[in-house]
Every structure is written in C-alpha cells, then in structure tokens.
C-alpha cells in the first residue's frame, strides 16, 4: 500500500496539489460514513417492509370476508346484485308512511330535520311559480294546501308529490370528499358510512347535491349508535341482503316506490323498468344518480 502511494506521489505532475491523506481522511470518512448510513437505513427500511409482509402471510391479521365480526350474512354475494330503485311521482299520494317506516326501521332520530328520506310537495300556480313544501318531511302527511310562503290563496295548476332519498350515485361526491375515507361504496352499489371512522366534519353533507345526508344529533337513538357522525339512507342494507325490500318500499300503499334486483330473472323490477322507462333525476351535477324517477318530477327544471 505504502509503495503504491509513494509511486503515485512521484508520478504526479509538477503542478499537482498534493493533499496529505491525513487531512483528507476525516472528510472522506465522514462522507463515506454518511453514505453508508444512508444505504444501511435504506436496507433496514426495505428489510422492515419485506419482513412485515412476510409476517402478515403467516399471521393473518388482515380480516377477511369470512370473519365473525358480526353474524354472518348467509350466501349473499354482493357482486351479483343490480339493485334498482324506481320512484313514481305520479303515484305518490304523500301519505308519509315511508318516512314513518324509515324512522322506525333505522332508528333515525325523531326531530324532523334528521331524516333519511322525505317527501316534497311541488305545487305550480297559475302565475307559473313553483312552491315546494315539506312539513316535517311529510311524516304526518300533508295539510290540505301548500304551506310554502307565498303559496296561500293562489290557484293551483298542477301539483305532485316527490319522494326523496339517497340516490346511491355511481360517482358519489360524498365518497370523494371525505378526508378520512369514512364513507365508501360497496360492491352492490350502496354507499355506506363507517361511523367509527367518521369525524363529523360535515363535508359529505355539504357535498351532496340531493341533500340526502345529515349529521346525527346527540342521544342514543341514532342509527349507528354514535352522535355527531354522518348518516344517510342505505337502501335498508340490512334488509336487502336477506331478500326483503327497504322499509319504505315495503310500506308504500300505492307502489310509488319499487325496488328489486335487475339481475334476478324472478324479480319484476327489470320488467317494470323496461315497461315504464324511468330516468335518473337532476343529473346536472354529474354524480350519476341511480334512483330512477317517473312522472312529473322529470319534467321539472
């Protein structure tokens, strides 16, 4: 080594600046130490990730579909379902039974401002004005005349009832804007909220163009048992996977709400859709709503 160094010194050109190794050594050592530390750190990081992945294979901590978190839903394959919801606004009589049934079935809080579904009455008067009223969501039916301010006394040209619920949009804005990914879309197309993760910021409530969401108030009687989290219509997710219909569909006396699995040949819903040709409702916000409407609601601007 020393012979090599001496040879190198002698072979150097005349104007070469020779820096003794002792002076350079600390700098080089420092640089190479930090370089080595960096590489070592990178290897440790890589090793850690690989190790964690390997451990996860041997110890199944990622809960799988077969987990007994809650009673297993027997033989329900969400991917095969094409849930279809049709609302006929020419048939609705505004009795409000759907709102009552929903509140009872889903333990929705009692005050009228918290609701998963509601009915609006749209009244057009002779002067072309549109008056919309929804007294307590229509839960007790509607009074004889429109209660919207300014509608009193005006002769009515046309009027109809408009049941409303979550559209379970194909491109839901509420899912996109949640900052903690608490709301999500299931394989069968229903948008649900994980009440354990929701922080109650209300972003999803303001982002819904159809006004389908709300934040639960205080009290134990809330759908997820938690106050201050987002809640919305789930198409009675706990009923449809057992072959039942959503409560509002079940109870509607005039079949203004219809529900079924379009993929099931025994289900009449596919035939109904084909025969009546319902359409999505207010698509201008680009969310691709999936509740199909019939009747005067579609003609409204």
């Amino acid at each position, binding site marked *: 080594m020393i012979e090599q160094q001496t040879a190198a010194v002698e072979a150097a050109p005349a104007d070469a600046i020779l820096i003794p190794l002792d002076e350079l050594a600390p700098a080089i050592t420092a640089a190479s130490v930090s370089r080595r530390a960096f590489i070592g750190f990178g290897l440790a990081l890589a090793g850690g990730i690989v190790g964690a992945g390997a451990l996860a294979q041997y110890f199944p901590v990622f809960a799988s579909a077969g987990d007994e978190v809650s009673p297993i839903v027997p033989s329900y394959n969400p991917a095969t379902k094409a849930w279809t919801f049709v609302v006929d606004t020419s048939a609705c009589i505004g009795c409000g039974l759907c709102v009552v049934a929903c509140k009872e079935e889903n333990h929705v809080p009692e*005050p*009228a*401002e*918290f*609701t998963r579904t*509601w009915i*609006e009455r749209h009244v057009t008067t002779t002067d072309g004005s549109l*008056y*919309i*009223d*929804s*007294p*307590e*969501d229509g839960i007790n039916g509607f009074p004889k005349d429109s*209660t*919207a*301010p*300014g509608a009193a006394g005006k002769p009515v040209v046309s009027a109809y009832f408009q049941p*409303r619920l979550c559209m379970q949009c194909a491109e839901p*804005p509420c899912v*996109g*804007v*949640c*900052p*903690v*990914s*608490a709301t999500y879309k299931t394989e069968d197309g229903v948008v649900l909220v994980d009440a354990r*993760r*929701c*922080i*109650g*910021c*209300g*972003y999803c*409530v*303001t*982002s*819904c*163009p*159809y*006004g389908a*969401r*709300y*934040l639960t*108030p*205080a009290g134990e009687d809330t759908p997820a048992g938690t*106050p*201050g*989290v987002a809640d919305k219509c789930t198409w009675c997710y706990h009923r449809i996977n057992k072959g039942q219909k959503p409560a509002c569909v079940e109870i509607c006396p005039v079949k203004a709400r219809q529900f079924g699995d379009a993929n099931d040949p025994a289900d009449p819903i596919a035939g109904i859709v084909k025969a009546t040709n319902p359409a999505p409702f207010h698509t201008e*916000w*680009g*969310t691709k709503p999936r509740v199909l409407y019939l009747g005067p609601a579609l003609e409204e*601007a």
Partner: protein
Amino acid sequence: MQATLRPMTIAGRPIPTLPEVGAWIGNEVRTTPRGLKRWYALLGVLLGVGGVAALISIPPGWEVMGTKPVFEWGLLIVAYVFFAIITSGLCLSASLGTVFGFERFLPFEKRHAILALISLVTAFLVIALELHYPIRMVFGALLTPAPTSPMWWMGVFYGTYLVVLIIEVWTLFTDHPTIHKYACTACAIVAVFAPTTLGLVFGVLTAKPFWYGVFTPIQMVCTALTAGLALLGIVFWAIDRFKLADHATAKPVAMPSIRLLMAIALAIVSALLIRQMVDALFSPTVGMREAAISLISGPLALQFWGARVVVGLVIPAMLLAMPMTRTPLGLLGTSTAMLVGVFADRLNLVEAGQIYPRTTLAGAVSYPYASYAPSLVEIGILVFALAFFAAAYTLAERYLPMGESDSHVFWPWPWIKHHDHAEPGDDDHDHEAGHDDGQSDPGVANAGADGADLLKRLAELTGTEGVQR
C-alpha cells in the same frame, strides 16, 4: 444545614424552582404597566367566557351549535378559515422581505413568524372544537388517506405548515440562519398552496354553485394576503404606540410598506369581488342567482354591503388614499376595517353558499332561503379564539426578543443582481462594530446601526434624503 443545592439544568440552562417562578410572576405583576394590566384583565375575562363555551362544546352532544343538516357549516368554519388565511397572508407578505430580499419589508420578519404560528395554532384549536371527533381525524388522515379529498390535502398542507412554522420560529430565536432561510422559503411556498387547498375545499362542490369554480381558491389566497397585511398593520401600530422592540423602523419603514401592499391587495380583492358578484347575478345555474341576491338584497345584505363592502373595502381605500390619514392611527383604522371586512367576506362565502338549498329538508327552509343563526356557544368559541390569539401574542411580544435579527436576505436567483447594502466581504454578523458613518438621522437615534442603514437605503431609493416622514 442549608446547603446550597446545585440547580438542575436542562441544556445548560437552570430550571427555575417553584418559589423562583412565583417570585418572578410576582415581580412581573408588580412591574407590569397599568394599561397592560387592563389589557390582560380584558383578555382574561374574554378567555374565561369563551373558555366556558369551549368546554360546553367538547362532549359530543352537539345540540349546542346552530348548525343543522341544511346548513352544516357555520360560524366555526368561518373562524377556522379566518385564522388559517391570516397565517398564510402573514407569510406571503413577509416573504417579500425574507425570501425575495426586498429590504423595506424586513421589519415584518420576526413578528410575522410568531403571529403566523399563533394564528395557525388558534385555527387548529377552533377546528378541534368544531369537529365532532378530532382525534379520529389525526389517525384517519394518516391511516386512511383520501387524495381525492381537498380537505385531506388541506390537512396535509396545514400540518406541514405547522411543522415548517415551528422550525422557522425556533431557528429565528436560536441563531440558525441557514435553516431559517430555507424554512422561510418553504413557508412562503406552503403559504400559497395551503389557502389554495382551503379554497378548493369549497371550490370542488358542484352541489353549492356559489362555491364552485376556480375563483374560490384564488379569492382565498388574495383575501389571505389582505388579512395578513391588516394584522401586520394593527401590530405595527401597537409597536409604534407602545414603543415595543424596534419601533424606530415601524413608522418610517414598516407602515409605508404595509400601506403599499394594502393598496395593491385592496385593488385585487375588489376586482375579484366585483367579478364574483357579476358572474353570480347573471349565471344560468340555479342557486347562483339566488345566492347573489341573498347577498345583495336578501338576508345577507347587511353583512355584505355594510361589513364587506363599506367597512372592508371602501373605508380602507379612503383611509389609504387620503394623505391626512396616513398616520399610525389611520393605519390602525384601516387595518381593523380590513380585518372585519375579511371576516365578513368569509362569513358571506360560507353562508351564501348554503343559503339556497337544492332541497327542502323538513320544512327547515324559510323558503326560499335556509336560515342560520350562530348559537351562543359558537360565538363564545370565536371570542375564545380571538382572546387566545391576542393573549398569546401579547405574551410573545413581551417576553421574546422581537428586534430585527441578522438572518435575512436570502436571494435564491443568482442571475439577478441583488443590490446588497453591505460591502462585499463584510461579515453579516459584524453589526456590533457599528457603521458610524455619521449619517444617522437624529430623529431616529434609537434605530441602531442596522436600522440606520435601512433608513439610509430607503432614503436613497426614494430620493427623500433628509426628509423625515
């Protein structure tokens, strides 16, 4: 028996014992000027009242807020946005000095950093009280990130902002000039991105046509600048009035700089507001017209015309334009008015966006407008936040060295010739040697060597040598 105990130390500094702390507090109470005592008393009362409101709101009962499903974002969101944009505005306006090296903006340096940090902490305090489960947000945002959510990005950027601000403030008061320079630059960059994401939180919602669009983030950044400048104006009035650290440069250097920037900011913000109103009034989108009408002649007319336009834009413009009011007191008036205007502007934005609901919910609509009135608890929390901000800054101003430091002038563009007033080869830390060139203006004798230099430069630049402002 009474041996002298060696005091415990941390990082070389002794930890004071309780009696020492008590004695120090007693001394402080004795020597505090009476006016300051009254100010502390006022802040104490407000903190108490507001603190009670904050405590009431903590259990997730949530009947105490005035928000409801049709009007979910209320006064606390407005307060959060207000404090968040003050932070960004402070860094934006101070970056002209700390990052781009314009010397006339250098007096902002220390104050803006402390103010920005306190403002951001206040903003986080308000949002922690507004959210129903703030702890879940910390875990949720990290474990289950949502890159599609502007609110998530806002959290990321403001979280980063907090870290960078802490670094900036720490290095400012503990002589790490290089790190401080880089922290200031990072701060300036984040100060543009953070309010942009905050604006995008509103701007991506097609459900609320008044909020939707690209101009909401732009307006957020511009009103941020306005708010930051307004706060600096109030602070520098206080510096001049109460003869706080480095008050010599406050009146001649800082105030004209603030006024200049305020004029520019007012012009931009006015133009944006006019554009927004005209666009909303003539928009074919349902909801836009109604929102604009609610602001111009509807329920929000008072807070639009009164608070936003007259108090927030017209009065500051007049006060800035008239030579008679270009005084420290005039600046205080201008700044207060502008700050009120910015708050009103955020309130208008949040309310007008939600006031025309696309759906009636449970007859909760006082047709055609939804109604919202902040509850006492919400107002109490706002009072608490303001008092906390004022108290924190008062303490910082009193007990931290706020004089201008040496760690500035970071000029990152080498191809642009930067005129440095120091001679080449001069050590930046050599101020104690003094530049006794005999040109110190007698009227600003206490400016110190550095301040005298600054005044000299300014005089040369503006051709007002020998003229005392």
